[in-house]
């Protein structure tokens, strides 16, 4: 049988929670793919300049600090400008509607429609984004060659080189 769920774990306040990520149906999935290709890949690409190697850290403290300032002042605002609030809401809602959290009483939907099904995620924006990443990587990993978004990134780079 086709595997339609995947378990992931996240540490929240020193407690480990298990989440079940579900496959999107083909129609929702293709809409999501459009969003990922149009909006998210360029976003992740611009974030690459923020990520710094640890070797650099020790060598040149000033350069790293400069890079971080640049990230806060230029890269992040520019990247986020391409996504409207509504688009981000819709994207996150669609992702979180496809994730269940394992609580003591059993699996509970993280979101059901517009409403949150657990406070574990409701007041944790970072966790919500991590779960969105899980949904995207689980749903589109096979599409992009089995390596999740890292291969998506490479794809994006090759697009730019060819252009």
């Amino acid at each position, binding site marked *: 049988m086709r595997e339609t769920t995947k378990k992931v774990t996240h540490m929240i306040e020193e407690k480990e929670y298990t989440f079940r990520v579900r496959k999107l149906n083909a129609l929702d999935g293709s809409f999501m793919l459009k969003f990922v290709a149009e909006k998210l890949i360029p976003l992740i690409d611009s974030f690459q300049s923020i990520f710094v190697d640890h070797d650099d850290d020790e060598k040149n403290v000033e350069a790293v600090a400069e890079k971080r300032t640049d990230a806060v002042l230029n890269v992040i605002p520019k990247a986020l400008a391409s996504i409207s609030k509504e688009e981000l809401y819709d994207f996150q809602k669609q992702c979180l509607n496809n994730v269940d*959290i394992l*609580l*003591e*009483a059993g699996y*509970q*939907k993280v979101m*059901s429609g517009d*409403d949150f*099904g657990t406070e574990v995620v409701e007041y944790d924006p970072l966790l919500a984004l991590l779960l969105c990443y899980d949904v995207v990587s689980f749903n589109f990993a096979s599409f992009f060659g089995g390596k999740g978004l890292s291969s998506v990134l490479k794809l994006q780079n090759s697009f730019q080189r060819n252009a």
Partner: protein
Amino acid sequence: MANNQKFSVYSLPDVVTVINHPNVGKCVLSNAGGGRITVAYAGDMASVTNTATGYVVINKLVAKNGSISLEIPNNSEADIFMRKWVSYLEKSKTGVFALSTMSLNDPAAKRILNFTGVVPQKKPDEGYDQTAGNRQYNLLFAGMTES
């Protein structure tokens, strides 16, 4: 002047009712099929002690607990959540039995009721008829604050 007529608006669909238990999850009952809600306070606010000669002492009493009754249609999303909640509490350890909270937000009246220590008084009765009926969930609460 006809325009000066005063009126107020009441709207049950705008009232947001939420029940939450950390180990079961959270359900916005009002978006999941929840219907009529009744809150009843258990204790009196005051009583009097009088003597044989007619002297009266008014007792100011403190009572914060009470009960909530919820009407929820069979098999609605809210019903499924409440069933799970009740059956979890039935088997749960004592320490987590009374961790549920409920809140009722009436934006038209700018009134929020927060209930703590919410527990099911009894399991709802089962009824299987030709059409879905409303199931009555009777809950007890330990405290209520209004804001």
